[in-house]
């Protein structure tokens, strides 16, 4: 091993020793439940993560002690609500290492963030014949908005292929880039395969072709530290509910100059500077993109979720999850007939697999009876399922609260499913 590899291994070992997963598990009330008479083994955090007590309490506290509409009232309570809401924005800025709070736009979810960019940046700046590049392993939320924009504006939409092991094919991407490329919209981590894409390199290449780049970070921010300035991302989106925060709040990061150049997404209250019956002018960032009363309590809850993972440390969470990923990969590989879909060298703790010709829903039903919750189906990523020639997969995804013994429970349950169907 090289010196750096030795150091890395030593760091990993140290992180593992100090990572008190049982303590963190106690923060998540739902995990102490039983399911079908068995302890709940929740392995579907990639669909939506569970919430720690700190987030649940924070959302309650908003309604109990500091709730009023934001940016409106001249009274103390409204000022407190505004401080809490804007405080959450500052936490998210810090979390992503964005340069300014005003580059953080709160949306409903990652889907809305992407639609916002398609409807404002895309409609204003893209011309017929311009090209957008996505990849074969995008979530539907990073495919459909671009198809709609393509059809409306007469654009060309291209998809970078993925290799047999689920890697983003950088060489193919290079060949696709040209002066026609105006936008590159790629996942930072695939929800279906777990692949982590070489985002910094993608951004560099996109920029050298004169294109802007958007990353779908919904699966990335939960598994690793993310720095939007280091990536040189023009846009970066993620959703709150996968990051142990409430549903109903998502984030769009955009470089200030781009957000300033873009027209508003929705019109209404909050996003205006002045309104007459003849015309209106727009508020400054970030309010320009936050029409109407926002998701106040959810945003505050997201801020607390960011505090929570930051206190543990994203690096430590990443190391813990990598240990689970390695252990689960090794154990699952020993199950007869089980094939892991997505074996890229750099992966987050997401494992998609097939088991002989047993349908994922049948597997899911059997293992659910053992208390194991896994997603089954196409994971809102049908094109990548087609790429691998499968209707769907069963997917185990791991969060900061999962344990090796839960991996064992998963493997036992899968063995039972295999026996059940005579696989």
């Amino acid at each position: 091993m090289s010196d750096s590899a030795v150091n890395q291994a030593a760091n990993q070992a140290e992180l593992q020793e100090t990572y008190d997963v049982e303590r963190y598990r106690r923060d998540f009330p739902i995990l102490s439940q039983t399911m079908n008479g068995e302890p709940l083994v929740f392995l579907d955090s990639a669909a939506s993560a569970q919430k720690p007590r700190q987030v649940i309490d924070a959302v309650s506290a908003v309604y109990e002690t500091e709730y009023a509409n934001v940016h409106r009232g001249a009274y103390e309570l409204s000022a407190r609500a505004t401080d809490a809401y804007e405080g959450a924005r500052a936490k998210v800025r810090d979390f992503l290492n964005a340069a300014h709070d005003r580059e953080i736009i709160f949306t409903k979810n990652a889907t809305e963030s992407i639609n916002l960019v398609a409807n404002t940046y895309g409609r204003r700046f893209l011309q017929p014949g311009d090209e957008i590049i996505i990849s074969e392993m995008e979530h539907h939320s990073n495919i459909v908005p671009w198809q709609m924009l393509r059809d409306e504006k007469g654009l060309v939409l291209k998809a970078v292929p993925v290799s047999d092991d689920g890697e983003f094919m950088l060489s193919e991407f290079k060949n696709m880039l040209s002066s026609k490329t105006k936008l590159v919209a790629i996942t930072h981590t695939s929800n279906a395969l777990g692949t982590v894409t070489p985002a910094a390199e993608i951004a560099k290449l996109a920029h050298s072709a004169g294109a802007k780049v958007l990353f779908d970070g919904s699966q990335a921010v939960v598994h690793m530290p993310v720095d939007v300035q280091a990536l040189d991302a023009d846009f970066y989106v993620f959703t709150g509910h996968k990051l142990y925060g409430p549903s109903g709040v998502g984030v769009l990061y955009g470089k200030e100059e781009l957000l300033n150049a873009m027209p508003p997404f929705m019109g209404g209250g909050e996003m205006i500077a002045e309104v007459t019956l003849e015309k209106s002018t727009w508020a400054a960032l970030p309010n320009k993109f936050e029409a109407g009363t926002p998701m106040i309590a959810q945003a505050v809850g997201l801020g607390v979720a960011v505090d929570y993972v930051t206190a543990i440390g994203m690096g430590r969470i990443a190391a813990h999850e990598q240990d689970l990923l390695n252990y689960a990969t090794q154990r699952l590989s020993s199950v007869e007939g089980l094939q892991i879909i997505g074996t890229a060298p750099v992966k987050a703790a997401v494992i998609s697999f097939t088991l002989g010709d047993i349908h994922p829903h049948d597997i899911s039903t059997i293992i659910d009876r053992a208390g194991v919750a896994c997603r089954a189906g196409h994971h809102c990523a049908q094109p990548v399922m087609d790429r691998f020639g499968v209707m769907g997969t069963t997917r185990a995804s791991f969060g900061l609260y999962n344990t090796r013994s839960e991996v064992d429970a998963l493997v036992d349950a899968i063995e039972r499913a295999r026996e059940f169907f005579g696989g």
Partner: protein
Amino acid sequence: MMDELRELYQEVILDHGKNPRNFRDVEDATSHAHGSNPLCGDQLVVYLKLNLGEVIEDVSFVGKGCAISVASASMMTELVRGKTVDEANDIFDHVHHMCTGEGEPSTANLGPDADRLGVLSGVREFPVRVKCATLAWHTLKAAIEGGEDATSEA
């Protein structure tokens, strides 16, 4: 735990799931319909050959799905062949009520067919699997009515 699973995946279901009957298209079909479950991506096509628009002379299906949906489709083709459209509709009502608890139970006397269909009733203990069992039947109904598409949401 295993008892409920055995109730859902009875031997008959496992057998039909692995070796579906009438798993082919009907070349001279008089109608067909496409069924899909958008939640899981399951797809199937049901082909019908109606004699004088009244009697189901031939019926078949192709597609992909879980053990429950394939078994349900397979059993359906066996049960409705040779039946009149009215009789097939009675069986649909029976299955729909049995699996979902919704609608009115069929008042028609289905005889031994009702017993054979009883194996599908296990899905009632598994609410998320009900649509797997009913997809083929909705698709059959769409084919009978001359529609082209059916979904498990119907």
